[in-house]
């Protein structure tokens, strides 16, 4: 009998354990509407429908008669709540849902928020499958990517926002004030689906940085041409720049492979960062297939490699190694995102004293046959959308609208007056002593782009970094050009691009390494161009041309 009971219990517990993973923790999502069948045809001027919908939009009064007009609260009905799926802060010691700024926005809005926060580092890997399988159980969702191919839109996962424009006065005003982003956000069916946060497009972009102490020792200014730059590297290589008695331990420049296109492409008139580029006449080309300029670019880098000015292990160099070298005063030139300048590189220099004279400081881009430039960033940042399964989409629209209001943006950028910042007699603002402590400020919830459509601000960033860094950024802004714009792809375009682009990118990446290191002779460059053509580059290029024409038409009307 005991044996019988034991075996039954064991079997039951094993079945229960095995089925634990099958538990439906979430209510199955309602089958999404198939919008691909009912799409409106693309209009000649894409934003026409958006403009018309904004024109006709009217605020809707609640049962109590309260009308939301862009300021808090968004509702006067008690007990309302919204579920938001977003990401945690990238600072591991920050509890973003309980940060003061975030709590204030939620409290002022008049609704409760049920946060579903996914780890910042795994957000895309976690949320993409959730969306793909229709299992995201939230009213407002932070997209894991920018949905450039309109996949989520066409899958019917999200509500078109046009129908709620009457409840979104802040958003519609922002669209009116930002016609470029309005055009970029307008989907193929003429609707807008996402409320975006924004990045600073032309400030604090990746740039060239020099060790000012080494420059002074060399008696040179920051080079502006490729020839002067090579001369400087050669000087670094030949001299004991760190005064340790060893002339052989200097590494003239420490550039990660991914940044070489940023650094040298512009000198040859190439935007290798975006890959595709359009000239003033709107002619679209693929920079990596430019038979003249890209060849010159590769020949130049091959020359640096042969002369020992571009290190042999450049393809496996990572940021940790660069920091290690800088902390040991072994290198004189770096290229990275601007924030690294004072926050990661200069501060590890053994002799950094907080001034630009003893730091890694940004400088103008290098010029060659073409005048140098830096490539800016697409301003559209994190995208927030309202799920088609949302219990009260109108309320969600109001919440997103309020979250992107000017009042909230001030909170995101400066925090709370008297706590994180103060207003001076002349009307200018500055962070308080507490606010100048970055850890404290992050825990306070500054720039909560992980959970709200926050807009980055140059002014509030300026006061966070060293003064000389802010000045350097202001100096460099003039060199920043727009990147390839954010353009939605159609289904057919997505299909073609996804089919061919991986092979093209693989060919480009491995050929660049081979030409630079000399394992493939430059005499084979024409063969390389032929190989790209064989990989269907002309078809992809044709699509990019059509997309760019569409973008220009939507932008200019």
């Amino acid at each position, binding site marked *: 009998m005991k044996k019988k009971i034991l075996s039954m219990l064991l079997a039951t517990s*094993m079945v229960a354990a095995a089925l634990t993973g099958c538990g439906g923790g979430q209510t199955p999502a309602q089958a999404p509407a198939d919008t691909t069948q009912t799409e409106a045809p693309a209009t000649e001027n894409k934003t026409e429908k958006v403009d018309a919908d904004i024109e006709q939009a009217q605020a809707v009064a609640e049962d109590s008669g309260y009308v939301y007009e862009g300021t808090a609260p968004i509702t006067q009905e008690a007990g309302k709540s919204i579920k938001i799926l977003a990401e945690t802060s990238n600072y591991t010691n920050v509890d973003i849902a309980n940060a003061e700024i975030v709590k204030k926005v939620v409290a002022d809005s008049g609704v409760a928020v049920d946060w579903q926060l996914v780890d910042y580092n795994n957000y895309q890997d976690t949320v993409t499958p959730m969306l793909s399988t*229709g299992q995201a159980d939230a009213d407002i969702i932070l997209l894991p990517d920018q949905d450039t191919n309109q996949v989520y839109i066409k899958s019917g996962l999200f509500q078109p926002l046009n129908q709620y424009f009457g409840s979104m006065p802040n958003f519609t005003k922002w669209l009116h004030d930002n016609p470029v982003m309005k055009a970029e956000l307008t989907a193929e069916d003429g609707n807008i689906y996402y409320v975006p946060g924004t990045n600073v497009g032309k400030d604090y972009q990746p740039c060239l940085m020099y060790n000012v102490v080494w420059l002074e020792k060399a008696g040179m200014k920051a080079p502006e041409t490729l020839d002067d730059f090579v001369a400087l590297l050669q000087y670094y290589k030949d001299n004991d720049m760190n005064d340790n008695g060893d002339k052989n331990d200097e590494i003239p420049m420490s550039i990660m492979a991914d940044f070489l296109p940023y650094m040298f492409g512009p000198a040859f008139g190439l935007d290798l960062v975006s890959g595709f580029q359009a000239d003033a006449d709107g002619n679209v080309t693929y920079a990596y297939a430019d038979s003249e300029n890209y060849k010159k670019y590769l020949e130049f880098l091959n020359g640096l490699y042969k002369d020992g000015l571009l290190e042999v*292990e450049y393809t496996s160099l990572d940021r940790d190694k660069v920091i290690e070298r800088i902390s040991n005063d072994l290198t004189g030139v770096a290229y990275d995102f601007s924030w690294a300048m004072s926050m990661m590189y200069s501060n590890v220099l053994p002799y950094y004293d907080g001034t630009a004279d003893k730091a890694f400081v940004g400088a103008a881009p290098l010029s060659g046959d073409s005048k140098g430039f830096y490539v800016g960033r697409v301003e559209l940042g994190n995208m927030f959308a309202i799920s088609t399964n949302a219990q009260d989409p109108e309320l969600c629209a109001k919440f997103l609208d309020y979250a992107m209001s000017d009042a909230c943006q001030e909170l995101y950028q400066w925090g709370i007056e008297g706590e994180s910042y103060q207003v001076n007699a002349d009307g200018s603002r500055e962070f308080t002593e507490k606010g100048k402590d970055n850890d404290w400020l992050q825990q306070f919830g500054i720039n909560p782009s992980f959970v709200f459509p926050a807009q980055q601000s140059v002014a509030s960033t300026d006061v966070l970094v060293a003064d000389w860094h802010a000045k350097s950024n202001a100096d460099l802004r003039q060199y920043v050009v727009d990147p390839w714009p954010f353009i939605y792809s159609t289904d057919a375009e997505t299909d073609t691009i996804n089919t061919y682009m991986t092979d093209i990118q693989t060919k480009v990446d491995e050929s660049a390494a081979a030409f630079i290191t000399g394992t493939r002779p430059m005499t084979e460059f024409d063969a390389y161009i032929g190989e790209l053509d064989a990989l269907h580059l002309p078809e992809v290029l044709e699509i990019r041309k059509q997309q760019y024409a569409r973008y220009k038409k939507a932008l200019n009307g």
Partner: protein
Amino acid sequence: MARNDKKKSAYVEKKLPLRTLIYRDRYLLIMMVPVIIFFAIFCYFPMTGLIMAFNRYKIGSGLLGVYNSPFVGTKWFSQFFGSVYFYRLVRNTFLLQFWSLIIGFPIPILFAVAVTQIRRKPIQKTVQVTTYLPYFISTVVVCGMINNFLSPSGGIINQMLNKLGIESINFMNLPQWFRPIYVISGSWQSFGFNSIIFVAAIMGISPDLHEAMRVDGANRRQIIWHLILPSIRPTIILLLIMTLGSMMSVGFEKVYLLYNTAVYETADVIQTYVYRQGIGSSPPNYSFATAVGLFNSVINFAIVFVANRISRRVTDTAIW
């Protein structure tokens, strides 16, 4: 004698009716139920999802979308087979696993034989634990160590080469070095742990047989050759066939962490390509990834099937 017993036993069971057999073994059968349910839910039911390889999975369509999405035939297979890199990917994947098998499979056997010959138990245990440890180091850390050790600027291996008057070698950027680095580091990391099962098999050999060989005057080499190796042969063959079952399944993360664009020629494998093409793209193309996964599984199954048949014919030992 043993064979006769088995025949006799089978003969007796055949005479018992099925109901009697079921009733007799009812507790064992009840305990099998969870196993059957587990395999049905987690192994066999997911196999129905292979239909994704033949359709265009619609993002956001949930579980039903696996079955309802538009049928595209062999589009994803054609796309994969039609890639200019198809041959290179298959070659690289196969060769990495092939060399891992050739180098990595015999080492644990030899190590197990050697370690069981150590007479002093404390030394034997120390050696075993020391060799198990690398297995528990995460792949990310191992790859970091490899990068540091092999760096041409300050890596310990190149420093040693320099002392011997040999110029630094840029190991991580030269395609010809990728396979040796992958195989040797993999063997180093896993040979200790993989030897456990062989050590257990050797320990299971009857001491009487050892004693008998010693009485007959056999030396250590003869004991190894005529007793130990034949005794663990079924274990070796079983593990060999199981290893062959993953000939086309290279560990993605290690290749991904070690490779760079300069060594794609020898390092780019099916898994890394699928990551770039299927999972890393926007939107993720799950159907493409499923198609390539199916292709891999079919090849792996074919290899196991052939290896099993060969093994049965040649050694009279087989999995089924």
